């Protein structure tokens, strides 16, 4: 699965996710990526999110919207909300994976509960960074 979230100069957020699904899946299996609110979510009031991992658990956790709701209704920061969904309910359900997220202030979060996640960020006035393992 691949995904991207962005903040533009007008202060607008967007999220996108694309995937080949799961190896050896049965015909017609759909994971979280095309389900708005699960693997992909964007809301200018909160953040943009793209998730990756075991799709069935991301759907059950409604991961993207859950993160946004924690910010909107509980006033949590992007980083705290992202950590809470990945290491909280999602993990408790048995889910493995991660997400990338950005808010309107340019804060970012890239939490994952697997050994690695291919990831990177490139923010204004900062250098481009990429990583694979937990380092």
């Amino acid at each position, binding site marked *: 699965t691949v995904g991207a979230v962005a903040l533009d100069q007008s202060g607008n957020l967007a999220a996108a996710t694309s995937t080949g699904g799961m190896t050896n899946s049965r015909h017609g299996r759909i994971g979280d990526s*095309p389900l*708005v609110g699960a693997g992909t979510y964007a809301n200018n009031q909160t953040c943009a999110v793209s998730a990756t991992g075991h799709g069935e658990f991301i759907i059950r956790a409604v991961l993207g919207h859950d993160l946004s709701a924690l910010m909107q209704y509980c006033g949590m920061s992007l980083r705290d909300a992202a950590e809470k969904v990945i290491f909280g309910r999602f993990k408790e359900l048995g889910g493995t994976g991660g997400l990338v997220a950005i808010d309107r202030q340019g804060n970012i979060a890239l939490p994952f509960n697997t050994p690695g996640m291919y990831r990177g960020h490139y923010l204004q006035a900062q250098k481009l960074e990429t990583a694979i393992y937990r380092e």
Partner: protein
Amino acid sequence: MPTFGIVIHGGAGAISKSAMTRELERSYHDGLREALTAGYEILESGGTAVDAVQKAVNVMEDSPLFNAGRGAVFTHAGRNEMDAAIMDGATLKAGAVAGVQHIKNPINIARMVMEKTPHVLLAHDGAEEFARLNGFELMPDEYFFTESRWQQLQKAIELEKNWKERSRSGSESDSEQKFG
């Protein structure tokens, strides 16, 4: 604080450092860098966040390294079935496609669903028909074939067969094996 920027992922999982060659590792970093740069350039020149995320995803869809587009994994039947979604935070509009088999860049069709239809999600044959009617080129199965993904499927089928034999003998229960 930065006034614009982009963050990407190319999948998460049991990525083992010991199983990764230095060359492959470099290829992944290069692929991520290329996707980030493509998205960042759009943002830097005043483009929209929607354009930036679409472009970054396009780069990764076109790479055989990542499980999307050209590098998509195989289903049990040996086919590629791809899903994609895009959402605009300014309008809360969203578009998605599921189970497409011949679309080079599924995220582009998802965006067209968002912008040109009253719907959110189109699936399978209907999504492909929508793409064809809107002038998108459908790719042959061979475009999505990668040897490494094919070998992953063969290994998964073998593991499944072994599990079924153990399950029949009573040494393993159904709940011990998830099957997508």
